[in-house]
């Protein structure tokens, strides 16, 4: 069903990624760094011959880096004719979308989170569902020198 989302873990918080945007879930293979790239770019990886740009979700969302190096799981998604891997710590289940339990993202969020969030759903836990397109078009990256 549209609106359903995959729950992923980043740090200690559960986040949601719209199921329609999830192409694949993989263990992160070796990632080649891109020197000079902004912090949110973890690098580029090869998955079955396809080049995928890996996004360090912690850096993107302003979270501190993981103590053990780059997180192990990645959600493969497509945006604007390119493939991306959203790197997260863990992957959970697909959760049904329940509009009656959904609210817009709280105004207390920082700008970074507000730009990246779609909505919040209150099940047993509070899950913030992310806007994949917004994640992949960070506002400050426009026309960087």
């Amino acid at each position, binding site marked *: 069903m549209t609106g359903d989302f995959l729950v992923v873990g980043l740090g200690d918080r559960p986040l949601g990624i719209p199921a329609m945007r999830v192409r694949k879930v993989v263990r992160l293979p070796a990632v080649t*760094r*891109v*020197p000079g*790239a902004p912090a949110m770019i973890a*690098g580029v990886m*090869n998955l079955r011959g396809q*080049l995928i*740009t890996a996004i360090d979700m912690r850096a993107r969302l302003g979270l501190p880096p993981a103590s053990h190096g780059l997180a192990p799981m990645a959600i493969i998604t497509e945006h604007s004719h*390119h493939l*991306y891997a959203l790197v997260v710590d863990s992957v959970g289940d697909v959760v049904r979308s329940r509009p009656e339990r959904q609210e817009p993202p709280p105004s207390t969020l920082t700008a970074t989170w507000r730009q990246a969030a779609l909505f919040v759903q209150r099940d047993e836990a509070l899950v913030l569902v992310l806007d994949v397109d917004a994640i992949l078009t960070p506002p400050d990256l426009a026309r960087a020198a």
Partner: protein
Amino acid sequence: MDELLNDFLSETVESLAAIDEALVRWERNPADRTHLDSIFRLVHTIKGACGFLDLPRLEALAHAAETVLGRVRDGSLEVTAPLVTEILAAIDVIKSMVASLGQTGVEPPGDNAVLITRLERIANGIAVASEETAGDEGVQLQSNQTIRVPLALVERLMDTVSELVLTRNQLLQMARDGRSFETLDLHFQRLSQCITAMQDGVMRTRMQPIGRLWSALPRLARRLAADLGKRIDVEFGGDDVEVDRQMLDLIKDPLAHMLRNAADHGIETPAERIAARKRETGRIRIEASQEGGQIVIVFSDDGRGLDLAALRAKAVDAGLLTEAAAKHLSDAEAARLIFHAGLSTASEVTAISGRGVGMDVVWSNLERIGGSVEVYTLKGIGTRFTLRIPLTLAIISALVAQAGGERFVVPQVAVLELVQIGSDGAQIEFVYDAPVLRLRGALLPLVDLAALLELPAAGQDERFVIVAQAAGFRYGLIVDELFDTEEIVVKPVAPLLSALEAYAGNVVLGDGGVAMILDVGGLASMAGLSASTEVAPPQADAVAAKQSLVLFRTDSPSLLAVPLSQVERIEELPAASLERVGGRILVQYRGALMAVIGLDGPPLLAPDRQPLLVLNDGGSSIGVAIERIEDIVEDTYDLVADPSTGRLGNAVIGGRIAEVIDARHYLGLPATRWERAA
């Protein structure tokens, strides 16, 4: 669906795509029979096939069109604009019927009585009031789900498949026998080569000449000219430049947009042009070429040029810039304003180019595929757009190098030469504090790749300089290691990375690893180098250092040479001491097993004593079977790097022309690597 029908449809779809251009050209120059003949032939063929395939509706229409064209051919009808318009309309309907046939397998119900009547009247010389028939762009043909591939390519692929099967069988045999794997390396090399060849071949089936894009544009220009009351000529160049199909689809729309804009805003009315002492007919030229790792399309018109003042004013009105800032923009920057969404200098928003949505869409379409567009304009003279798109899914030769612990790839077209520096090779010198390399009298500015990309220094003494060709000047890129040249499939970087000047794309290497493709121009720009940073060579001795070289002969017709520094020893060993083991030749040499090779394949061995050149790079040794040593000379040599394996190039040494071999290549072969493990 019926196979005959299928064949008919694919053939016809292709011919129809090519016919628009012929039609427009023919109208421009009715005396030129070649276009008329090809249009006639097409319609005639369609009519014939229809009779055979039982397609009465299409047949009737094709017949009516054929009659008109036939009369033009035999001179009894004159070519007029209304005639061409009706023929175009007929072709459109034929296209839509063919498309419909392709989907359903049967003719759509109904008839084309009105159109046929008009065609018949035209055939009989009765003037027909021109009504623009409905249908805006001309029917868009379904993008074909089949492709045409040169037979030779398919045969090559078949051959490669056979080799793959053979190699697989050999490996299978070895696995079954449980034999020791002496020849495993060799088979794997063969396997890799086959796979690469297949990859290459399959990729090439997707390449199309960019000329296919040109087919729809003349027609569009014709309609625009008619609607706007202007006279416009469109010329093309570089039809043969090959581009991946996907690329073609993606730049089709940007080009159409630009054509609309040029026709609407760029080209003046005939009266204005004459008043400005220009030719009455405006000219638009679209030229494609390949430059390094990019396809370049130059789109130029000889119209009135961009109205920079109006652009500045619009930008201020739209709140994009303050008045002061707008005034301070250079002309080049002001011209770039057209790529901003929402700016349209049309005083009326016409249905043709719309509300300023044209150029910003072009910009973003190009950016999405890793391309770019620049604009150059001169008031009253014209405007020129330069589109650059990466050679996606194209295969280029690239040199694999390493710096700061990371691997990179440099397109071979940008590599002029490779120089080894360090204790054994050339030295880096300093002019003031800028590092330079003395290369045959000239001083080459140097850029340390690891330092530029803020990567850790490898701290090794022996490094390499890639002499690179940037736009209009050369410089040297210092790297830590050089590997081999690979045929790689270029992929554009994600838009998030496209702003990084250092990279022109990324690629999966032969071993599955990922490497960034370096943009030598971008790196130069990052380092602050440009054509103007000339380093004046000092007046002192411009004589390059002399080196000792061993001149020798094998069964090859050329005289060969190798730097003495790469030669460990010159030996002559009894032929009996050379043993054949599992398809290769080994010899016990100084307590270890050493492989003996020929420079161009299996060595030709002498019957009793075999002269050997023992090469060594500080690691293991390899013996090159030779015929005899000719001489050892001291000389300088001027080398042009040659990507062919094993040779550095030809040089004049000791007064004779010799081929200088690259010992590193032979030392790096699998033969030696295996030896080290043993």
